[in-house]
C-alpha cells in the first residue's frame, strides 16, 4: 500500500514538472497551430544553461532557471520570428519538418558541445527529504513542483488578464480579425513562442535539479508535451496542468507495477486512446473549438 502512495506522490511531483514543460507547447499549438518538435531541445538548453552557471559560479539552479528562461525567451522569439513565421501558413508537414530540422541541429549541437554524458546539477538540499508516514518526499522535487505549478498558473493569469495575453489569445482565435484591430500577429506569435521556450527552459533547470539529463532526452520531452496537450485539450493551459499531473501519476504507477520497459509504451497508449475517444481533450471543452480537427 505504501508503495502505491509513494508512486502516486512521486507521480504528482513529476507531473507538475511535466505540466510546466507542456503548457507552453500547448499554448503555441493552440495559438498558431504549430507543433514545435524542438520544444524538448529547449528544455535541455535550459538545463545546460543552469548547469553551466552552477558549474562556473555556483549559481543555485532556481536562479539558473530564471537565467535559462530569459536566454531561451530571446532564442524562442528569434526562431519564431525568423524561421517558423516564414512558413506558418504552409501545409502542416512543412512546419513539422522545419521544427524537426531545428531539433536535429540543437540536439546534435548540444551533443557536440556538452557530450552525450548524463549530467545533473548537484545541490545540498535537492536529495534531502521529509516523510509523511511511509512516504518519502524529497525537497528538490517539492521545490520543482511548486515552481512549476506557480509558473503555469502565472501563465494562465497572464494570458487571461493582461493586455498582451489577451492579444495573444485573440490572435490565436482569429488572426485576421486581430490584425484588423491593430495587433501585430508576427510579434504576438514570436512572443508566444518566446514564453513557451522560457517556461520549457526554466523547467529544464528543475529537471537538472531533481535528476539527470542528456541531449537525446529532448525527443521524450517533446512527446510527453504532445500527450499532455492532448490530454488537457489543445491550447487549454489549466488543462495542461491537469494533463501533466495525470500523466505523471499514470507513468509512476506503470513504472511501479509493469514489468520490463512497458512503462515507455504507456504514454503512447494514453495518447492514441485519448485521440480516438476524445480528440477534444479530457479536461472539459476544447479551448479552440474551430481547431478541433476531427471529421
Amino acid at each position, binding site marked *: 500500500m505504501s508503495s502505491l502512495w509513494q508512486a502516486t506522490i512521486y507521480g504528482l511531483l513529476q507531473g507538475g514538472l511535466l505540466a510546466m514543460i507542456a503548457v507552453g507547447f500547448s499554448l503555441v499549438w493552440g495559438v498558431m*497551430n504549430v507543433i514545435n518538435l524542438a520544444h524538448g531541445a529547449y528544455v535541455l538548453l535550459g538545463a545546460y544553461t543552469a548547469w553551466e552557471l552552477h558549474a562556473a559560479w555556483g549559481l543555485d539552479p532556481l536562479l539558473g532557471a530564471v537565467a535559462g528562461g530569459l536566454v531561451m525567451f530571446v532564442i524562442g522569439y528569434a526562431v519564431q520570428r525568423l524561421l517558423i513565421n516564414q512558413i506558418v501558413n504552409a501545409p502542416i508537414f512543412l512546419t513539422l519538418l*522545419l521544427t524537426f530540422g531545428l531539433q536535429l541541429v540543437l540536439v546534435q549541437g548540444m551533443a*557536440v558541445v556538452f557530450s552525450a554524458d548524463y549530467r545533473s546539477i548537484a545541490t545540498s538540499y535537492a536529495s534531502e527529504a521529509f516523510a509523511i508516514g511511509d512516504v518519502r518526499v524529497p525537497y528538490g522535487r517539492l521545490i520543482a513542483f511548486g515552481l512549476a505549478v506557480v509558473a503555469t498558473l502565472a501563465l494562465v493569469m497572464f494570458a487571461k488578464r493582461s493586455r498582451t495575453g489577451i492579444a495573444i489569445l485573440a490572435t490565436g482565435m482569429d488572426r485576421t480579425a486581430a490584425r484588423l484591430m491593430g495587433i501585430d500577429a508576427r510579434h504576438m506569435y514570436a512572443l508566444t513562442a518566446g514564453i513557451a521556450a522560457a517556461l520549457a527552459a526554466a523547467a529544464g533547470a528543475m529537471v537538472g535539479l531533481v535528476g539527470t539529463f542528456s541531449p537525446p532526452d529532448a525527443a521524450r520531452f517533446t*512527446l510527453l508535451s504532445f500527450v499532455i496537450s*492532448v490530454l488537457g485539450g489543445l491550447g487549454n493551459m489549466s488543462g495542461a496542468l491537469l494533463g501533466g499531473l495525470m500523466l505523471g501519476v499514470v507513468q509512476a504507477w506503470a513504472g511501479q507495477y509493469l514489468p520490463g*520497459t512497458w512503462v515507455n509504451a504507456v504514454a*503512447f497508449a494514453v495518447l492514441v486512446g485519448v*485521440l*480516438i475517444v476524445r480528440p477534444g481533450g479530457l479536461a472539459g471543452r476544447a479551448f479552440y473549438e474551430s481547431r478541433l480537427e476531427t471529421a
Partner: protein
Amino acid sequence: MSRWAAAALAGAVVVVGMIVLPSQLYTGQVRVVTAVLMFVALAQAWNIIGGLTGYACFGQVVFFGLGGYATAVLMEHANWSFWAALPVSALGGAAFAALIGMPLLRLRGHYFAIATLGVAEGMREVVTNLGWLTGGGAGITVPTVAGRGTEWLGNDGFYVLFLALAGLAVAVAALIAHSRFGYGLRAINQDEDAAAAAGVNTTRAKVVALAISAAITGLAGSAYAFQQVTIYPQRLFDVDITVIMIVMVVIGGAGTVLGPLVGAVGLQFVSEYLRQHYPQEHILVLGAVIILVVLLFPSGLVGVRSRSGLLDTIRAYRL
C-alpha cells in the same frame, strides 16, 4: 497516348541502365545505390498518403518495422522462405494500416500526425518487450543458410531486389496519380468536405491509400531486414526514417510522381556524402539542410519552374 509512350520509353531506358549499372561500380557504391533505391520506394509510399491524400503520417516507419519483423519472425521461427515472407509482410503492413486507419484517419492535421507517431513509438516498445518472439532489444537474426529460399542474396542480388521495389513503387504511384482514385485522393487533400459532397467515399479512399502506402513500406522493410540479417527495434522503428521519407517528398514536390523520385535520389546522395566526409557532424548538417529546404523550397523542386516562381513559393506561406 504519345505521352504515355514517351514515359514508358524513358522508364525502359532507365531500367536497362540501372540493371547494367552495378557492373560499372565498386561494391561500396552498389550498396549506396541500393540504399537510394530503397528510399525511392519509401518516399513514393509516403507520398501516396502524405503528399497525395494530405494526411501527414508521422508514424510511417511502423509499417517498415512491422514488415521487417514479420519477415524475420517468419523466417527464423516458422522456417519460411524469404519469397513467401516478403508478400506476407506487405499484406501484414496493409492489414495493420487498415486496422489503425479506421479510427485514426478520422483525425485531421496534427492530430493524425501525432497519433500515428504514437502508434509507431508504441509499437517499438511492444516489439522490444516481446522478447520471446522478437528477440527484444538484443535484436533478431534472420537465417541466411542456403536452400529453401533463405539464401542471402548478396550485394548484387539486393540491388536487383530494391530496384524492383523502387520500380514497383514508382509504377503504383504513377497509376494512382492518373486514375479516378487519384483524383479522389487529391480532392480529399484539397477540401475533404467538398470531396465528400461530390460523392467521394472519403473514409474508404483514405484507408485504401494508407493501406497501399503501408504495403509498399512493408515490402521495403521486409527486404531491408533480410539484407541487414540482424535487426533491432531501435533501427527498424526509428522515427528518423519517417522524417527522411517526408523530407525527400518535400524536396522533390509533394503530390507529384517525379518529386519523391528526385527528392530521394538527391537527399540520399547528399546525406551519404555528408556521412562519409563529416562522420561526427553529419546529422547536424542534415538538420540544417532540412531547415534550408523547407524555407527555400516549400513547394518542392519539381514545382519551381522559374526564378520568379522560386521567390513566389518562398513567400507563399509567410505570415
